[in-house]
């Protein structure tokens, strides 16, 4: 079966949106990393020290 004919404009638009989505994903991942690192720094050097309960 032949592949569906996609108008040139729509194809370019889809590619552009895909790039935008990837960029947005990177921004969100960066935000997660920032909040994670900030939390670790704010909790101080003892954050990884195991304490007896």
């Amino acid at each position, binding site marked *: 079966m032949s592949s569906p004919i996609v108008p040139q404009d729509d194809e370019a*638009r889809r590619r*552009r949106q895909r790039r*935008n989505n990837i*960029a947005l994903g990177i921004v969100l991942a960066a*935000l997660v990393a920032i909040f994670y690192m900030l939390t670790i720094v704010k909790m101080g050097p003892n954050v990884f020290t195991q304490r007896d309960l």
Partner: protein
Amino acid sequence: MAFVDDSKGYIATAGGARVEDYVALLKPRVMSLVVFTAIIGLLLAPGGINPVVAIIAILCIAIGAGGSGALNMWYDADIDAIMSRTANRPIPAGRVTRGEALAVGIICSGFSVAILGLATNWVAAALLAFTIFFYAVVYTMWLKRSTPQNIVIGGAAGAFPPMIGWAAVTGDITLPSIVLFLIIFLWTPPHFWALALYKQGDYGAAGIPMLPNVAGESATKFQILLYSIILVGTTFLPSALHQAGWLYTVIAAMTGTSFVYLAARLYRSHDNLTMKKVARALFTYSLSYLAVIFFALLVDHVALLAGWIK
């Protein structure tokens, strides 16, 4: 394909923007100057800061500046379309809708202030919020279109970043950080008036009351010379306040002399061609001048700390 026709008549394709267009909304070139001066303010401040927190603080200042840039482009799309320097910006070129620019501006501004407050302190965050408000509302929405003194007062927005960097470390506003503010504040008028002198046709067509269009070329050239002299005088304040040593003082004297010399040459230029040539030279020189002054402050500071100079 869907088209969005917004209130000011710019037609942009919905979802048609590329990543680069959104980046352009953040005015990366202005952002680079903001980042540079903020880093210097942060490094000159007494006391210490966790390097991770420092990087996050600089990132927040950069994104905050970008947010205010996007808000500026959202509001100024009508005049940007008229001026050759700005006609290819994402909104007038039809690549981004005004609504998208507004959303980018608000999101970047809000997030940068909140994260800066959480990462460092709320004095720095309040200063960043005030800077964004000053640039987007006081300068863009009010002063820019109403007074030829627009960039004198509006220049304060560009002068705050080293103070924010400083406050991120110390949590306060002190005289040395105000001196850093003053240097950029006084540098802004001669820098932008030099640009306005050789681009005055553009500003006139857009109806922006820049000094050359309102007060004339002679008055502008005089004001440039006056501000240049005051600016160069101000660059010696760090030395007078024992913030900087002889190395900085020598560099400030040498580069300042060239700045005033160019401003004086501009003041004495009479024919249109020479005036535009010298104005362009002063505009270009002023960019590297500010970078050299701030870099010299840092080098001098490091050299003093390391005991290389006394």
